[in-house]
């Protein structure tokens, strides 16, 4: 097939990196080693990217100002101070330097931040990143992330302290989706200096955000939050998907088919879903694609099309088997599946391979690209 046309305008930030810190970190609450500082700096970098947009325009053109995430409120050291939990709506970003954002175990002082996106759904969603983990031995290896629903009055997450995260709306504080709960997002808990690379995509209209993070040529984390393309018209607002994949491993990639096609890692929130799995109204979604011979096409094929010489790219569907939401309910904007065999474990192949490099592949996913050479290690 010919290369697909990019639908949205994107602000793309490519090949960002945090250089691993070889020094011991005495600033963390656990006295953890350097990898904790690397992860804090990575988290700061991602947060800054989400609230500032990106560096390269990619898309059909007519670029304007990007609609970024905004800080709703936060808990952090605010440039070297003691932890302070803000009040809802104060819009103060207290995440400035690495020592502002310590991880900790539940009930102990730790950082969190609530970012708002008013371009998703009717009233928007809040993204809550909470730097909490079940054990402090390896600070920063796991965390919690939630997406909360904003109501007509602009209410989303509320409350929160230096020791407890904000709570969602709803009678049972249940108007949220748990994206990560004490789960990995930046590789294993092995103590070592880590140089991370990452790329972010934010649609100019603010609806869609994608992030991929690499360490040592391994995609240690992939984030996808956004609205579906061609959603089922009966999918009630807020129509969105949100998923973060990461593994507590330094050898497994988070951007391959088994992470999204074989498991329903993507989620959304449905008011009419009464979950039996937990107290949340979250609903699970698979990423679907062309399938035959007992596998997705991009695992069956390991070489380009024999006739055309082209590498196949396939639309990514959103299909659920969760109660009250069963069926194919939409597709992903400007995101395709490519051959898993292309470009090594984490990818880095571009389409076309030279010249404009309009698309770049990381793992199984093919993203809009700004023409630069992808760096994954």
């Amino acid at each position: 097939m010919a290369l697909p046309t990019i639908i949205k305008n994107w602000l793309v930030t490519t090949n960002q990196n945090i250089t691993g810190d070889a020094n011991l970190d005495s600033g963390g609450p656990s006295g953890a080693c350097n990898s904790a500082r690397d992860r804090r700096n990575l988290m700061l970098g991602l947060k800054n990217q989400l609230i500032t947009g990106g560096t390269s325009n990619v898309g059909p053109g007519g670029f304007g100002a990007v609609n970024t995430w905004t800080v709703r409120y936060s808990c952090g050291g605010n440039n070297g101070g003691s932890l302070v939990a803000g009040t809802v709506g104060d819009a103060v970003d207290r995440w400035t330097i690495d020592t502002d954002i310590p991880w900790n175990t539940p009930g102990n002082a730790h950082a969190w931040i609530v970012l708002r996106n008013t371009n998703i759904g009717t009233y928007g969603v809040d993204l809550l990143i909470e730097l909490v983990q079940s054990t402090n031995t390896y600070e920063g290896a796991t965390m919690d992330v939630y997406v909360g629903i904003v109501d007509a009055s602009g209410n989303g997450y509320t409350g929160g302290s230096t020791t407890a995260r904000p709570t969602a709306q709803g009678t049972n504080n249940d108007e949220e989706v748990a994206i990560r709960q004490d789960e990995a997002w930046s590789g294993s808990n092995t103590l070592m200096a880590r140089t991370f690379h990452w790329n972010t995509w934010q649609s100019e209209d603010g609806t869609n955000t994608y992030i991929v993070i690499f360490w040592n040529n391994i995609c240690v984390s992939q984030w996808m939050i956004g609205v579906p393309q061609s959603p089922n018209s009966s999918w009630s607002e807020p129509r969105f998907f949100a998923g973060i994949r990461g593994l507590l491993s330094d050898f497994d990639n988070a951007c391959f088919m088994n992470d999204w096609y074989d498991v329903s890692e993507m989620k959304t929130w449905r008011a009419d879903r009464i979950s039996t799995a937990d107290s949340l109204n979250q609903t699970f979604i698979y990423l679907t694609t062309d399938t035959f011979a007992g596998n997705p096409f991009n695992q069956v094929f390991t070489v380009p099309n024999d006739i055309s010489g082209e590498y196949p790219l396939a639309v990514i569907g959103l299909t659920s088997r969760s109660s009250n939401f069963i069926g194919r309910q939409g597709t992903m904007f400007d995101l395709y599946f490519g051959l898993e065999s292309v470009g090594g474990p984490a990818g880095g192949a571009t389409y076309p391979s030279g010249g404009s490099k309009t698309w770049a592949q990381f793992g199984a996913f093919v993203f809009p690209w700004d023409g630069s050479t992808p760096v994954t290690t």
Partner: protein
Amino acid sequence: MADPTKDKTWEYDLNNLVIADGATVDGAFLSTRQRLFGIKEILINNGSTTFTAPWTVVSSSDSSTSGASDLWVDEFDLVWADDDTSNARSWIVLRQTGISTTFEVCIVCQEDSTSNDGKQIEVWVAQAGFTGGSTTARPTATDERQLRDSTADGYWGSGQVNTAYTSQTHVWMSSDGDCTRIVICIGDVVTGYWAFETPKNPTTGWTDPYFACIEGEANVTTSQVTYSRFLDNATMRGRYSGANTTMYLSSEGMVNDGIGEATGNGTQQQNQLDNSYIASQCGLSSTTSTFVGRHGEVFDMWWGLSFVGTGRYYPETGTKAFVQIGDFVFPWDGSTLIRTR
């Protein structure tokens, strides 16, 4: 997905009954002869429908005579011979110019043993034109591709049973001749599925593209249009650059199964937001050496939800513009699908 829009203008000859003629070996043989003869008649516009682009007879044999005419005048002109003998046999070559100038199918009344009279055939397709042929030997073509082999898989929709069954034959033909589909049903079971088609959006460079199949089994209880048959196995056949190819009919899916597969990891239920039942367009993908890749789609054919089964219309009332038969969803003319066994 919502009910789709059709790419082609479809013409139909549906619900063609072959009535069981007693539960005897002779009755079963008569039924199979009538069934195969009936298919030929429908394809060349001797059925109840006048197709815009019918097939034409190029040549034939009734076992007594062979030549460039239609010698299959009635079912008794279909005479079978064992494949390991030089006995006289019937055959026919039909042409469909909608697929390519000389796209032809050669049907040979040939079985692996006398006990399989009528139950097995040998079928070949070619685009270079079949030539030759006599009462004892079929015509051949330089680029022929075998669809049915009487020594291995000659069953074509009548099973291997010595009991006569009442069956229905349904024939679809696109008005441009690009696509011909034949379904043979005994009750709700699709015992035979035939297809001779041009793909939609074929890969550029695939000259005179086509795909074809004839599926049937010894029993009359196993559906021939299933995810297992076409999604998990490369059942469609074709040619590329002088070599034989096989193709899968792919579907959108997850966890290694089609979305509509009820026995695997499919959704196992209609879409709960819009109540739609059609799962996915049928794609054409191949792993044949030198032909690896996705090479197009099937015009106006979709994977359905397999738990639904044969006989569901979409929409369920009114136009009935589509019907599910087995795991496939076909265009439909709004009539009622006869499901008598």
